[in-house]
């Protein structure tokens, strides 16, 4: 549903603009950005909180690349007030969100907001949440999701979660954080490396590779209980877990029969079934959103390239043809896009392929990109890279025009995987 018929065709002159926010560094580059001008008033009562609800909402909206933030002094308005539209129109805002935070008798907080279409003078509805102080950020992300969906017609991803791994001396940690990188909670701490976390489709479990037993072994880990299950601990190396969309199957790379080869496992247990057999490296499997195909990396042609095979192991097709090193495929939820890492002149760069016609473009200026993962609405990518010699996580819009560095833990940070939509 598109609410507005006149979108701001902005940033035509802003070839390079940088906005520094409380939580993020957000970089907007390029011309011809279509962004909705929007403003969010400070929520009445939020001054008493450490978490400024409106700041979190604004940072979410800006990071999505779909919005341009308009600064308008709005006074003390809340969701019960109809805003004065003329001034907002003059300031160039197409929409305004107004809200409040009230402390309840039981210690929780009541968060309420209402969204207004400034152009048409329309009330676009609102919501209220009663949350504990630890869930205030989540409530703010839900507000941003509502605004995003009402104004763009697509579901918001601000209340989703991202898993990632940090490495400090002798300490490797798997974290679960909000989609903005904040509110990180440790799921696993280990003296040995952890790689390749992958969210289950229901968002309850993470599969990953842990080296805690001095070899790569695949586990599935329920993040809310901390309960872990061994998924693949066969002789040799066990790695690269990928969930099928129905959550019933995991594709993994095993070396138990010699070489790195692809297998399918029931998540409930049982013997692995070989997907394909080759004399080359086959690894990094990932299911297509319809569950019918598996994309993977193979050096069968002499250099690592991305291929596609049906889940019954039939009909292997090569997908990447440009360059001599293409790895780490990720497929968007609508099946239209494949993000992957391609080596170009010694640099490892995030690329995006339109699967319909195979057209490819690089979308970063960085040179050590790794591990791309799509947001569940397919509108953003999260990936690992290096900034000023340190590992960092970044998000980018698919056109590469709006990028943000995620706040995270200190030290090296890597291996992001974007979880599914929030399920109430």
């Amino acid at each position, binding site marked *: 549903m598109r609410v507005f018929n006149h979108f701001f065709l902005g940033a035509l002159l802003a070839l390079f603009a940088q906005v520094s926010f409380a939580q993020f560094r957000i970089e907007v580059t390029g011309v011809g950005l279509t962004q909705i001008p929007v403003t969010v008033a400070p929520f009445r009562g939020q001054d008493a909180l450490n978490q400024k609800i409106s700041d979190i909402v604004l940072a979410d909206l800006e990071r999505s690349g779909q919005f341009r933030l308009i600064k308008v002094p709005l006074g003390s308005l809340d969701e019960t007030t109809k805003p004065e539209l003329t001034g907002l129109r003059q300031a160039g805002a197409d929409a305004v969100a107004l809200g409040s935070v009230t402390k309840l008798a039981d210690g929780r907080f009541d968060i309420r907001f209402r969204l207004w279409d400034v152009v048409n003078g329309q009330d676009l509805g609102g919501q209220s949440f009663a949350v504990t102080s630890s869930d205030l950020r989540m409530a703010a992300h839900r507000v941003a999701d509502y605004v995003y969906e009402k104004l763009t017609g697509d579901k918001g991803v601000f209340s989703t979660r991202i898993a990632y791994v940090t490495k400090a001396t002798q300490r490797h940690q798997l974290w679960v954080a909000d989609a903005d990188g904040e509110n990180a909670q440790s799921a696993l701490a280990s*003296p040995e490396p952890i790689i*390749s976390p992958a969210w289950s489709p229901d968002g309850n479990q993470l599969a990953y590779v842990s080296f805690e037993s001095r070899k790569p072994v695949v586990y599935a880990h329920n993040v*809310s209980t901390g309960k872990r299950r061994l998924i693949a601990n066969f002789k040799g190396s066990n790695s690269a877990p990928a969930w099928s969309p129905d959550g019933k199957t995991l594709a993994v790379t095993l070396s138990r029969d010699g070489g790195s080869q692809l297998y399918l496992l029931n998540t409930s247990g049982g013997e692995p079934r070989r997907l394909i057999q080759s004399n080359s490296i086959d690894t990094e499997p990932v299911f297509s959103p319809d569950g019918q195909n598996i994309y993977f990396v193979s050096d069968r042609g002499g250099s690592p390239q991305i291929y596609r095979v049906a889940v019954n192991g039939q009909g292997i097709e090569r997908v990447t043809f440009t360059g001599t090193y293409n790895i780490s495929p990720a497929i968007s939820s609508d099946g239209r896009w494949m993000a992957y890492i391609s080596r170009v002149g010694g640099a490892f760069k995030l690329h995006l392929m339109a699967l319909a016609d195979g057209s490819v473009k690089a979308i970063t200026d960085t040179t050590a990109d790794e591990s791309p993962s799509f947001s569940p609405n397919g509108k953003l990518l999260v990936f690992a890279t290096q900034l000023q010699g340190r590992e960092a996580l970044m998000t980018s819009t698919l056109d590469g025009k709006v990028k943000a560095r995620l706040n995270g833990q200190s030290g090296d940070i890597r291996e992001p995987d974007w979880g599914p939509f929030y399920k*109430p």
Partner: protein
Amino acid sequence: MRKFVAIICAAMVLAACGTTVPLSDVPVTDASPKVISGTDANATGAGIKGNGVAPVDLGAGATQANAPSEARIVYFDYDSFVIKPEFQSVIAAHARFVKAQPARKVAIEGHTDETGGREYNLALGQKRAEAVRDALSLLGVSQTQMEAVSFGKEKPAMAGNDEAAFSKNRRAEIRYQ
């Protein structure tokens, strides 16, 4: 010959120092998030499900005091899995040692330099480990005594992103268990 025995003995002493700390059982705690019911509101009131994460800690780092002994490491060229002639004698010495002790288990751990993706490097390290395993097998070591595994680029022997470090990291380590 006497020299090889000395090398192997030294390797054994160092390998014995390299035992890892056993992992304690993973604590299983119930930290299920409480669902907060929504309050009536002027619009579509709703609760928010908490997002609790139960932390699991596998303990502190093992004290890896053992510097890797050159005599149990096979180095590889860039993008290569071929065992260079200068390492044949190391492999032959280990083969004799393992064959003499049928109860002995050996892990061959493959590693890569830091260039490229983590999973693809894991597969490249596996090729190096399997190359050494197959060379030991050709010299008569039983497959049941050996396991070839890979650490990819996760455990470099030397920090740094120049060729001096890379050449020390492209390796397979023979480790007795």
